[in-house]
């Protein structure tokens, strides 16, 4: 019988994946006014994986706890995760952080907050998205494992927990896949291929309303979240220039020559 898992799943509220982000007129923040926010897709996969571990073996998982750091609105991300099947949640409300300033909550600060929270919670497994699709840092998981001094397996595409408590994680690497095995405690970060998250059922949304969310502050956890980076400028990606039609092979060749392609 493997040790019972107490899983912490850190989640983040980000601009919806299907929405095209725009830089504001002052070129200093990504426009967030009236923009739809959702649970970060990689976090969604992490929650799904935790719930699946429980579904695959009822006795294996003792608890699934979500934790999110940010503004009070991060509650939305927690609610989505609770409706997917997590048991409880914690919201680390960071003063001075709102939607437009989400990028100033940096990976190292988040990793420190998570470390303090995980230490307190007595968890033995962290499953989290490999990156948030807003800053695309792909750092928090690794930093957290380093701070906790736990084993880490990033970019997971398959997770197995053996009888003796060894966790094997298959991860996609250039040219194939690699399987890592380690004893708990451990940090796993999720890649896209790990699973397809479920749709959230109505009864689960209703049940989620009754689940508990603890509120904490960085001060409670003894972490300083002052940004260490300065955003110098923000710019939209260059606009794609439309193509043109040519009516003969000759004109195609001359066009190609014109742009120096041949």
């Amino acid at each position, binding site marked *: 019988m493997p040790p019972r898992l107490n899983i912490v799943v850190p989640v983040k509220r980000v601009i919806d994946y299907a929405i095209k982000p725009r830089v504001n007129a002052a070129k200093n923040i990504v426009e967030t006014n009236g923009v739809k926010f959702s649970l970060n897709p990689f976090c969604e996969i992490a929650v799904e994986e935790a719930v699946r571990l429980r579904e695959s073996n009822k006795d294996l998982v003792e608890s699934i706890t979500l934790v999110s750091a940010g503004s009070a609105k991060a509650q939305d991300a927690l609610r989505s995760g609770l409706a997917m099947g997590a048991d409880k949640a914690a919201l680390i409300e960071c003063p001075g952080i709102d939607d437009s300033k989400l990028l100033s909550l940096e990976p190292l600060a988040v990793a420190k907050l998570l470390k303090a929270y995980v230490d307190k919670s007595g968890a033995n497994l962290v499953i989290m998205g490999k990156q948030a699709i807003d800053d695309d840092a792909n750092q928090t998981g690794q930093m957290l494992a380093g701070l906790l001094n736990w084993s880490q397996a990033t970019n997971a595409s398959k997770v197995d927990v053996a009888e003796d408590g060894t966790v094997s994680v298959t991860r996609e690497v250039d040219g194939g896949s690699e399987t890592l095995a380690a004893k708990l405690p451990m940090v796993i970060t999720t890649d896209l291929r790990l699973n397809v998250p479920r749709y959230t059922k*109505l009864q689960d949304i209703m049940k989620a309303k009754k689940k508990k969310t603890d509120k904490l502050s960085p001060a409670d956890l003894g972490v300083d979240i002052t940004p260490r980076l300065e955003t110098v400028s923000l710019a939209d990606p260059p606009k794609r220039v439309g193509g043109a039609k040519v009516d003969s092979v000759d004109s195609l060749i001359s066009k190609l020559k014109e742009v120096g392609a041949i």
Partner: protein
Amino acid sequence: MRTTLRAVRAVSARRVGSLATAKPALRTAPFLASAAAGFRVEAATALLQSCGRRNYSAAVTKVVRPTAEMYPEIVRDARFGELTAADVEYFKSILPESAILQDDQDLSGYNIDSMRKYNGQSRLVLKPRTTEEVSKIMKHCGERKLAVVPQGGNTGLVGGSVPVFDEIVISLANMNKIRSFDEVSGIIVVDAGCILEATDSFLAEHGYIFPLDLGAKGSCHIGGNVATNAGGLRLLRYGSLHGSVLGVEAVMADGTVVNGLGKLRKDNTGYDIKQLFIGSEGTLGVITGVSVLCPKRSKVVNVAFFGLDSYEKVQQAFVKAKSELGEVLSAFEFMDRESQIQVARFSELRRPLDEQHNFYVLVETSGSNREHDDEKLQNYLEGLMESEIIDDGVVAQDETQLKNIWTWREGIPESLARTGGVYKYDVSIPLEDLYLMVEDCRARLIEKGYEIGTEASNIVSVVGYGHLGDGNLHLNVAVKSYDKAIEKVLEPWVYEWIQKRQGSISAEHGLGFAKRPFLKYSKDQSMINLMKQVKEIYDPNGIMNPYKYI
């Protein structure tokens, strides 16, 4: 068809492009093509796009027999002139060479309809770029009594946009400019050949929405939508084109240009002639331009999808939706179990509900205040759960899920068409009897000795789905191949069934060629006589889209 496909490709390239650039994180993830979340998005896009294309590839190898051969009772009208080299020379004098198609391969896409049921024998396709060019073409055709078929995206479902014999096809594909848009009033004036989806994307950039949306949006033209009075998914919220179209510019059979491009909401000055063109299906004139009143695009859209046990409960859910969602309700679509089984056969997407249900409903709300809408939807859904009207349900948590859920409704025609052929009935029936029609249809086929859905049977599935909010049912009989014997079992039985309940034999697809003999089941003889008189006045030689319903 070549042009149509090219247009679709252009649209799809753009859409994929925007998805790929939206979030670099997902694009740079390894093995994106099949990576889980990435795959969800791509599969959804692919399915949506193929819906727009209306199953062009699935049956592409199958030869479509000429309509004239399939329907020997229809004979070519001897009054019409025959196309001569001199006619073509004349057209060459007014149009550039690229706007004149005569090659067999080029023509087939314009001769064959999107259902691949009808195949005309036109020898000439003209693609004018301006209203003036259309006028010159029609003047010549009028003088020479050459019959014509105006054609938009050729996505029609009743064979109305393709020729039967040698009618000249006038394709509006090259008239695709947005003429003007007023940001204050929301009135857009477009060329008839503007593609619906492209126009809607243009409006989206300005915060507006086209009041019409339908599965073929990636290919269909607005002129064609107006000519066929298309209904679609937004009718429940924004009403029919008879209300939102403010003006029509058309070229008559003798080349006269009718300038009715009004931009007024209120205009009580005599007969509202433009209404005649809406739903005329090309039998009165060629629509070349349209002005449309567009509503503001809703900032907040929610979608829920749920499973129900009986049609009775579907109706209860609808009544509750009207009272509890009220002004934010923007779609109420229902689907039966069979239709979802068919979509699941071809979809790579996860089904929204794990267990099977007899009926499914998709509810969409559109509003301007997220908290307000969320709360309304939440209360509505909780009420449904508590009163046990629904068995199970899900709510889209993000835009990707929202789009994916829609594919379970929009993907039905596409997945049915993949089986071979589809007998489509698009009917309006009083709500309480709506689904009875599907059950009766199954019973009738079985009674006549047909098996449904077995390995050996030609009939793959009999499904019902549609815009419940509008009392509009789509009864589809999917077959491996079209069979006259099956057609005879279904028709005119279907139409008689509808007539008994004072329904309409065509709620939104129109009549075209397919429903030509059945008009009498929905319209009284005195009405048909009036329609004929109108036709006689505007098109005395009958050259506009002949052999169709009138």
